[in-house]
């Protein structure tokens, strides 16, 4: 397998997106994004979808998510319905779940993704419900940090890297 310059630039895992191989699952997710956004916003939606796919191809999944959401923010009104938001997000969710099919244990990977997403999304919605954007943003970031740290600690335990509490 040859590693290209593009592979070196992209923020992707070599485990779930081996360099030098076309990520068909990711391509499929990008098509879903393009289709869902075109259906939602027509011409503008198609442009946003294509830019998101381009960002995915060049810089990887997290950058595609960020670019897509920033473009949707400037396009969609503030008071969008939950159906609109759900249709806009379906492609991004597919983009996140697509590489997990290559994981050593896909079932465990999908479960971890669902739990993580539910945890952070719940914290965000909770913040929006009781206060506003500031609290929601803070809770979303805190929940993300907590989730990453929790997996780190689980990893130390499973790899037996924690020192004994009592000598």
């Amino acid at each position: 397998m040859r590693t290209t310059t593009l592979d070196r630039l992209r923020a992707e895992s070599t485990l779930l997106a081996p360099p030098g191989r076309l990520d068909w699952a990711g391509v499929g997710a990008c098509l879903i994004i393009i289709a869902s956004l075109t259906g939602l916003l027509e011409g503008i939606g198609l442009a946003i979808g294509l830019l998101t796919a381009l960002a995915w191809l060049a810089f990887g999944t997290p950058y595609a998510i960020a670019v897509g959401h920033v473009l949707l923010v400037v396009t969609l009104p503030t008071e969008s319905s939950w159906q609109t938001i759900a249709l806009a997000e379906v492609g991004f969710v597919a983009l996140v779940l697509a590489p997990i099919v290559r994981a050593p244990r896909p079932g465990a990977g999908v479960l971890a993704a669902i739990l993580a997403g539910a945890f952070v999304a719940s914290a965000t919605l909770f913040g929006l419900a009781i206060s506003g954007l500031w609290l929601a943003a803070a809770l979303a970031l805190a929940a993300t940090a907590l989730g990453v740290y929790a997996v780190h600690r689980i990893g130390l335990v499973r790899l037996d890297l924690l020192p004994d509490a009592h000598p």
Partner: protein
Amino acid sequence: MRPTRRLWASLALCVVLAAVAIILAHPLALAGIPVIATWAISHQWAFLEECVAIDASLTVEESLETHAVAVDDTTEATITATIPRPTSLHVDIAPGFPVATRVSNATPLSIARDLTQVNRTVDITWPVAGRHRFDPATITATDGLLTQSFTAGSGTAVTVEPRSVDDIHVGAGGERHAVAYGDHQTDRTGPGTEPATVREYAPGDPANWIDWNASARLPEIHVREFQVESDHALHLVVDHRPSLAEGTDDRTKLDMLRLVALSLLHSARRSDDPVGLVTATDDTIATHIRPGADPNTFAAIRRRLLVMRADARDTSPTARGPISATKARQAVTALDDDDSAFARTLRPYFADSGAYHQRVADRPLYEAVDAALTPSGSRGLTVILTDDEHPGELTEAIGRARSAGQSVLVFLAPTVLFTPPMADPEAAYERYVAFEEYRRELAATPGVSALEVGPRDALAELLSIGRARRTPGGVTT
């Protein structure tokens, strides 16, 4: 798991989206944060699963030509890392080479993505005697977003033995002598465990000294006195200047003298006598361990003796040291009868006899003996292990030890026994005879014993030459 810069940059996008949501007052931007978080945590979990699988199945083996080597030997070792199935992670394996070794290539091995095994053969040199164990190898796995390190493999053990010499000869004039070091009498009575004499009770004697058996038989009360057991300090002075490196690879002068020193150390330890060590190189005292009878001192002396090497000889034209004291005295005597301008110019420089002592004191072996006996004032045994390259200095060093009330035991490695091959056997035999005369001269000094140390086969060859020179008629040629 340590995030790489790529993952940190990706997580920073969450902060960017939060800022966009607040600045534009649009909650949809916040929806991107759970999506990115889900991506990051799901990748983290998949990476963890793969690391756990590798940790459970990866094996690292070190196979060596032999597990028992001698000091300074170089052996080949093959490091093999195996996993049951290929992985998409980049896996580096850093073998846990023992600390006290020199390895030809210590860089980590890498298992390529489509392979299940990697191996490398390296040369390992073992300069330190003892039992060495490989540490578990350090495995570093990364997928570009996360890095994790863990250990694998159980350490292989290797025993490194000091170089031993099988055919060592210790003796005098070709005859082997046993060197005894052990219990010693003090000729003093007092507290102790060995009974010495029985005498009449004198006022002041301790009651527990009373010998009841003798007192019952004799009209007066008698006491039994015991031999005082004293510590007899052993001062080892070892010369490891360049001339001590002469000989073959595994039996140099220093190798043989080292065995003698280790044997004496072992005997002293059994007697619980204090032992000290001073070693001398060309221009300095390399080691000075003060006498002690504790296990740490014995261990330190043993370690130093095992790792000691003869210094490399400096062959530069300027590397000539001062002349020996004997030659200096001869030069002064020769000047007395010379009335030339040359002699008149030099004579004042030899007039100051104080300079003679300073010149002697600059000699490493003399300095080593002096250091060994300072500031100790106890009587003991000074053992000097050296060769016959510096006879004048050795004589002065012996004199220094004797002046401190020490008994002196000298082990001399004659250069003629370590010079291969003997192209001119007759000349070699003459050199050995000269050495033997020198050794006898030292041994004739009161309080001094001098023994030769060398390879048995080389000595036997020289002695056979001597026997051949004595004809059946008793005529020596």
